[in-house]
């Protein structure tokens, strides 16, 4: 078990955004969280990645309790994420965005940097090399020195994933990775996510609205509605679940 959430509860004022959710994820899986708007998916993501501390419940990652850790500590444990509305560093170069992601794996300290020691230079050179490779892997070669803001929408999404990969995460959280993409870009992203699991051995948890993507790549699906888990299982089981259909299409459709 890579990630385990036990009885997670989070309210904002009178609104219970996440209500007693149990969730678990095995190594090497691609799992999806789906649900109508306002179901609490992103809140759940934010709890895992340390932005919110749940009112009740526990998050165990890699046998460590990460419930109350700050986002940067959670990242250091090996969880990286992307955002629903892309959050790159727009005025940094593409390659620098990835280099920021590598921060945890670089070690030069301030004294070494000020004296520009050989160690710093070799480390930086290697980091740039790695960043370039990672960008090539994400299909962004040749754009290293462009500013992140100047990339096309699809490229920005890919860069965000590349930046998250630079953290070398064991678990990658993708918040609507295909939102706003055209069908071709969506297919590419789907392939890319599958590659990530198969080649890079990253476990992936995604929030997604595009059912073709969800049904096509998920090993496991969890459905949320009004902050509660209403169903979970394999894609086929979810597709036929009357509760899920009700949540998505309304009472009469059943």
């Amino acid at each position, binding site marked *: 078990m890579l990630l385990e959430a036990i009885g997670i509860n989070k309210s904002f004022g009178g609104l219970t955004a996440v209500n007693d959710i149990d969730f678990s994820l095995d190594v090497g899986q691609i799992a999806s969280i789906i649900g109508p708007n306002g179901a609490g998916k992103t809140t759940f993501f934010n709890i895992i990645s340390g932005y919110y501390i749940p009112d009740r419940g526990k998050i165990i990652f890699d046998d460590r309790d990460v419930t109350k850790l700050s986002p940067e500590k959670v990242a250091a444990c090996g969880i990286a994420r992307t955002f629903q509305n892309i959050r790159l560093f727009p005025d*940094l170069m593409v390659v620098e965005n990835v280099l920021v992601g590598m921060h945890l794996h670089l070690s030069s300290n301030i004294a070494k940097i000020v004296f520009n020691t050989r160690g710093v230079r070799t480390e930086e050179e290697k980091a740039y090399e790695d960043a370039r490779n990672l960008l090539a892997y994400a299909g962004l070669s040749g754009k290293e*020195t462009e500013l992140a803001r100047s990339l096309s929408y699809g490229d920005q999404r890919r860069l965000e994933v590349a930046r998250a990969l630079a953290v070398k995460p064991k678990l990658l959280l993708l918040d609507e990775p295909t939102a706003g993409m055209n069908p071709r870009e969506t297919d590419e992203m789907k392939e890319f996510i599958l590659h990530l699991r198969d080649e890079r051995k990253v476990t992936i948890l995604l929030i997604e609205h595009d059912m073709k993507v969800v049904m096509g790549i998920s090993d496991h699906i969890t459905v949320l509605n009004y902050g509660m888990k209403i169903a979970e299982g394999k894609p086929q089981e979810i597709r036929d679940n009357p509760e899920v259909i009700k949540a998505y299409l309304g009472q009469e459709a059943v």
Partner: protein
Amino acid sequence: MAKIKLLNQINPKYKLALQWVFVIGVNLLFYLDPQSGLLFILFLGSLFVLYRMPVSTRLKYPATLVILAGVMPLVGMQNSYYFDVITQVGIYAALAIGLNIVVGFAGLLNFGYVAFYAFGAYLYAIFATSQAANFIPAAVAHFPLSGNWFWVFLVVGAIMSAGLGVLLGFPVLRLRGDYLAIVTLGFAEIIRIVFNNLDKPINITNGPKGLSPIEPPALFGMVLNQPIHFYFIVLGVLILTIIIAQRLDSSRIGRCWAAIREDELAARSMGVPVVRMKLLAFAIGASFAGTMGVIFAAKQTFVDPSSFGFMESIGILSMVIVGGMGNIAGVIIGAVGVVMLQLNVLKELSQYLGQLAAQGVIHIPSQVDPAKYEKLIYGLILILACIYRPQGLLPAHRSLPNWLKKSKQDKAINGTQEDNTDVT
């Protein structure tokens, strides 16, 4: 505009030659006529032209050094006023570079930067006058300390100011933008008022009367109290600050700062330790100011709280903003521009107008005496600069660090050679 286009159409070779002629010519003329205010401005301009010239740094750096360490001292020995102005420019340039680390690199708006400058100045002033004898018994040490301690205090000032920076940093870590600006502003006022009132119960700062005479620096028994000495001290420290700021900017620390500036939340989820990085930015920015404060105290031989008012902070901030936030060369130009405006250009202009009025060429009613309106024009120029050039005179732009580009080229060359051997 037409002129600029024309300049761009000129054959690059001729353009380069023209630039060399300008740089050398201006320096020669300035050497021959050290009294001319116009030539002084052109002289500073020639440094900028040199900076922008498309020649190798192997040529550029020595040329800059010749100008700064050769021409300027030669001129300065004949006209110590310009020595004073350019030393002032240097001090403010170093301050602007330090503030730029906080504001430009890390994006933390700081209206109280002068507090650290004041702290450094008082630190040296207290121990380099007999003031420290008020609270440290003579058995421990005899005050004033000798000028040899100046060099130690350059470092001590940096370290202590960095500590003060961290102290300020802690309570404001959660604040951003305007809130941060207000707290830092208050902090600077607190520091100034503390210095103003710390003459009782124990007289530490001598209150509003200020401290003097401060021991000038000394080296191997030689007292360094001439303008030329301070010029070279400032030049040395300025070069050091430029190198440090440059290296930090292109390092992993600089990238963390930029990431925090661009999107703090995203930076955190990349594992950037936001708290530590912000404190580091405050500390390093403050340390630059502390060191410059020590130099300022030694140069003036007198400090009092009035030198460290709110306008001083605003002045340094405007250098950073007008020059180009985040760009080291930009903020230096900002410092040159703002200091020259304040000390030189506007004064000469109002003097010139006053002269014309005295000669009866033009008539100026006493209500609009140009000398009274220097600050107004200064403010107007700042407003215009912000409207027409919001990104600064020399906007920040990201590029790969030079040494990395070089190694990339080397590799590319090696790579093609390997390819060739593969083919054969």
